[in-house]
């Protein structure tokens, strides 16, 4: 009996105590968003590395402010052949090449058209057909050349905007860094559009990922990139129609085929480009691209899931 009396207080303590291990955490403010980093294993210096690489690419890809030594801002203001940093050269090369890997509606040279739409939607106005056609003509008469020794040349008036790929590209770098340092348990939340999942600090290692726009829906995932594009973020409703920040580079329209696309992939840059591009693909096209390029998608229309890959189990609570 005395033993029981001794065990019970211990049981009480065990029941009420908290055993969660606090991860190493850092919030990085960049890419017009917040990157929330949680490492369940690893060192503080890894957080600093992640912080620095995010800032490096943020500065270099900023559409509105000068990068150092040379970034997108400067590239968009010259037609001269110039030498740029190898890291930015590789990112630009990837952004132009990804179109050939199924991202038909991803075009990094739509910066000026996209900017015109943003300015117009801020005033709750629809961009006129005249301006859209002028911008499309500008784009069609422009090109981008890659030369040896990290030289590049923008030809024409169309401008580069890497907003649809830069964050995913950096998360890919972060993934490679963490893997190289043997870190397996982490979550890097790039703010809705780009998420890198390692394993959670639990037995299953699975993270619970809520789908904001579908009531009570969630998925469980680990060791993958999740990229999301949607009209719900930064969408503006005018006369009952939602105009998004995702522009169809073929038609110049800000009205998308789908309301939201979630891409689960093993490459952050590719996932980001694909989620943007697939916003303007039909369901049949998406299914075909999935098979060909080893990605899994969830497609949302009117706050309902209209398609999800057979290996994705969407749960409801």
């Amino acid at each position, binding site marked *: *009996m005395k033993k*029981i*009396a001794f065990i*019970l*207080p211990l*049981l*009480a303590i065990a*029941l*009420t105590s*908290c055993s969660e291990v606090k991860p190493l955490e850092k*919030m990085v*403010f960049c890419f*017009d*968003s*917040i990157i929330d980093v949680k490492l369940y294993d690893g060192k503080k210096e890894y957080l600093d590395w992640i912080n620095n690489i995010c800032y490096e690419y943020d500065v270099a890809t900023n559409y509105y402010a000068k990068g150092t030594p040379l970034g997108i801002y400067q590239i968009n203001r010259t037609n001269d052949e110039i030498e740029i940093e190898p890291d930015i050269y590789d990112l630009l090369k990837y952004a132009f090449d990804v179109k050939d890997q199924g991202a038909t509606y991803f075009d990094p040279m739509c910066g000026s058209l996209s900017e015109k739409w*943003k*300015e117009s*939607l*801020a005033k709750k106005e629809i961009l006129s057909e005249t301006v859209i056609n002028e911008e499309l003509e500008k784009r069609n008469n422009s090109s981008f050349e890659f030369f040896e020794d990290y030289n590049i040349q923008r030809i024409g008036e169309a401008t580069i905007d890497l907003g649809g790929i830069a964050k995913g590209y950096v998360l890919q770098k972060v993934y490679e860094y963490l893997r190289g340092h043997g870190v397996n348990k982490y*979550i890097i*939340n790039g*703010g*809705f559009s780009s*998420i890198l*999942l390692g394993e*959670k600090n639990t037995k299953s290692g699975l*993270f*619970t*990922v*809520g*789908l*904001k726009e579908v009531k009570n829906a*969630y998925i469980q995932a680990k060791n993958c990139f*999740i990229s*999301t594009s949607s009209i719900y973020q*930064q969408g*503006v409703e005018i006369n009952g129609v939602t105009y998004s920040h995702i522009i169809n580079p073929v038609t110049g329209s800000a009205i998308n085929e789908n309301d939201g696309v*979630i891409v689960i992939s093993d490459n952050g840059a590719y996932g980001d480009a694909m989620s943007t591009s697939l916003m303007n693909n039909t369901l049949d096209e998406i299914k075909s691209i999935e098979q060909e390029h080893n990605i899994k998608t969830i497609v949302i229309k009117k706050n309902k899931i209209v398609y999800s890959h057979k290996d994705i189990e969407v749960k409801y*609570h």
Partner: protein
Amino acid sequence: MDKKVLRNDLILIGSLLVLAVISLVLVLTLKTKKNLVAKVYVQNEVVEVIDLSKKEEKDYYVQGLKGQVHIHTKNGGIAIVESNCPHQDCVNMGYVYETNRPIICAYNAVYIVIEGKANFDVEI
């Protein structure tokens, strides 16, 4: 004697069990209670911490990088209602009542992050 010892032991066991159950209920209640707090950052610095659980209707003015940002709270939600940024994405976002949905005015480097109990590890 034996009967008395047995009775006292039973009282002790019963009391400890009641204590354990009460403690467990308290811990679980505290864990599930949302107690949302909004932290307002300008660049990397926290400039305002707002307890949203008070559900107060109140105005806050924060000096951003390129101008003043007007923040408003009501019914446990928070919004940027006025900013000099060109695209107005932050203003168009409206009121936010939950975690995992930061309000960002990149032009002014103003970030509002709601902290508290979340239903999910992350939301997309």
